[in-house]
């Protein structure tokens, strides 16, 4: 019985209307449609043909395939993997049952990822194969709900497979923060998400600090943050570069209301390699920057220790806790 249950499961992962099809031909047609709408082909890759492969894979996974002798590799080849890719894929989590493997792969195909992308993804994140397929589905749905279309969704997932495994609450908190605290528009959020999906992995208070630093300390507006792909660079690295520029006298926090500055563009601070950043923006040497980073790290460490001590001292003297809003001044949208 247990085996039967498992064999049936993949059907439930397919879109409801496809599964409820009266005949195989109709099912195939609907599946093709589902695939096309869920994942518009990028670069004109023919998705329709994929439906057939996918279908064969699913049918096989459901125990309907008569050609068991071809083994698992054949099943994967049916789904569009080359012999070599199928072999590699089988090497990932090799103890996994064929059914579960194919079900997960089918789910990824449904998101519109191609064979090579799936392989790359699973080689980096083998644990995805073990995820219940409804989790994969649910997560993809959430991301679509945030406005990511097929191509953007694919790119986000390839760039950041952790999106699948991130707890739902964490993701929701990060999204809320970006919209409500950082005041990114829905459109800006969408762009942030597909260009820097890892933003959702940041601890919310960390993320808030990251944003506030750039908004208040560097004086950069949301629009420019999005364009510069702000969240692609880890905060610590951005801060290293910014404070280095600041101490060299090459970056100044703009005054309130000031729109024109001589500051380098955020894009150039973030997107250049360290070598190019030093040569073209900071006009400095790797030796200086190396030492600077070490010194700054030590400064930060000691500042934190000091603050902690201060807090402990304060705690000793505070009778009642005053109620206050600990948030910094709120950012405004341009």
């Amino acid at each position, binding site marked *: 019985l247990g085996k039967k249950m498992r064999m049936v499961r993949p059907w439930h992962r397919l879109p409801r209307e496809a599964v409820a099809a009266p005949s195989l031909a109709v099912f195939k047609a609907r599946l093709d449609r589902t695939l096309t709408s869920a994942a518009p082909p990028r670069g004109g890759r023919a998705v329709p043909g994929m439906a057939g492969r996918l279908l064969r894979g699913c049918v096989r996974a459901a125990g309907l395939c008569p050609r068991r002798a071809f083994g698992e590799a054949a099943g994967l080849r049916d789904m569009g993997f080359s012999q070599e890719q199928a072999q590699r894929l089988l090497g990932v989590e090799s103890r996994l049952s064929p059914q579960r493997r194919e079900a997960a792969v089918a789910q990824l195909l449904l998101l519109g990822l191609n064979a090579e992308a799936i392989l790359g993804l699973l080689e980096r994140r083998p644990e995805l194969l073990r995820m219940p397929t409804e989790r994969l589905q649910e997560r993809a749905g959430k991301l679509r709900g945030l406005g990511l279309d097929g191509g953007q969704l694919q790119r986000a997932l390839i760039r950041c497979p952790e999106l699948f495994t991130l707890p739902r609450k964490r993701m929701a908190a990060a999204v809320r923060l970006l919209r409500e605290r950082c005041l990114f528009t829905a459109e800006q959020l969408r762009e942030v998400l597909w260009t820097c999906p890892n933003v959702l992995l940041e601890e919310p208070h960390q993320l808030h600090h990251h944003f*506030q630093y750039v908004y*208040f*300390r560097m*004086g950069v507006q949301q629009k420019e943050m999005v364009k510069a792909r702000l969240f692609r660079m880890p905060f610590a690295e951005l801060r290293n570069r910014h404070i*280095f520029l600041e*101490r*060299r*006298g*090459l970056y100044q*926090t*703009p*005054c*309130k209301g000031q729109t024109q500055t001589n500051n380098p563009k955020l894009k150039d601070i973030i997107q250049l390699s360290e070598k190019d950043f030093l040569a073209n923006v900071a*006009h*400095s040497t790797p*030796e*200086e920057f*190396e*030492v*600077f980073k*070490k*010194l*700054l790290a*030590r*400064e930060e460490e000691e500042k934190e220790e000091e603050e902690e001590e201060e807090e402990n001292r*304060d705690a000793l003297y505070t009778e009642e806790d*005053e109620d*206050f809003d*600990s*948030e*910094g*001044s709120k950012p405004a949208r341009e």
Partner: protein
Amino acid sequence: MAALGGCGPVVAALLRRGPAPGLRPVPRRYLYKKKWAATAPRIPCTRLALHHFDVNYSLQLKDLWPSVRASLLCEQKYGALLNNFSADDYVTQELELMNATDFVSEGSRKAQQGAAAEEVRREESRPQEVPGKVRTVMQTETQAEMSPPLRASISSNIKCYTYPRGDITRFRPARQDSLGILDYYLMDAASLLPVLALNVQRGDLVLDLCAAPGGKTLALLQTGLCGHLAANDVSISRTKRLYSILNSYIPKNIRETVSVTSYDGRDWKQLEGGTFHKVLVDVPCTTDRHAVMEEENNIFHKRRTKERQMLPMLQLQLLMAGILATKPGGKVVYSTCSLSSLQNECVVERAVDIAETQFNISVHVEDLSHFRMLFQDTFSFFSDCRLGELVLPHLTANFGPMYFCKLHRV
């Protein structure tokens, strides 16, 4: 001296931006907000100092300024001046295990190698007096001329350990030996250069005109060569610190040979004229590193504007007093920890001029460029200094700023 006033229109505008609110400490609950605030309630002295330096030093140092600026704003490097009077023999070992090296002995090794190589060259060039070789011979001669100070200048007993370039390790605090004497003194290693330049010889009568808190006094005593050392500083509270340093580093019998006084250095000539072989004039200045880092006691405080504007004048008067206190044939080293040419070269030039015209004393500026060569591994020197030498802070060798210039009273 207009630039030194530091009150150009931009600074004035900065200052106007708002009246200073009460000086009560900020309640802790506002600190978080303050962190992001674009405008501080009062413009900190450090900001004013930095702005002033941006205006002046970018002209003076040009492309080098950003690098110096960042260095001033980062943690400075120290050197450990070994206390030769301490009985703790393990310090050197301990320091060397940590990869620190004595930059003074390294410099003197270089000087000896240089001198030896020169011997060889001189030997070689003697039989070769072919017309075509004239240039080589002339070069050798100039080098030969330079060699005595080159060799002598660092034959001191001063030892100062520093960590290599780019190494940000810190020294542990000084430790007492069994007699309660501390094993080393932590100071900006560049501060030793003026003392090395003074080149104390056995039996010299030495004056340290602005001595407190006493780092350089301590270094002068480490040579073990001073016939007599007079350490003066106008500030009573700072002379107390000088005393306490002498107490923690120098054994009683030697300590008692140092005469500590609290005169206004400008009046020195009225007390004793022309008596010293060596005089160190380490004047008060804008203390650039302090000015951009610490609010407390900041010379760029609005209240101290007049005092700051008068610094070059005070420096000039102190240097004049130093020159007058020197025996004919004696040496004066003038030093500051500022980058400002108005407090450095300009003061020296004026002093040489005044000595000549008003006192009929002839003073020559001595060439110290060999210091650059000998200590370039440890310090980063400014190559365009008109007179004297200037150590520029650099992130990989974050010592200085330190200006020093040596004068010879003829």
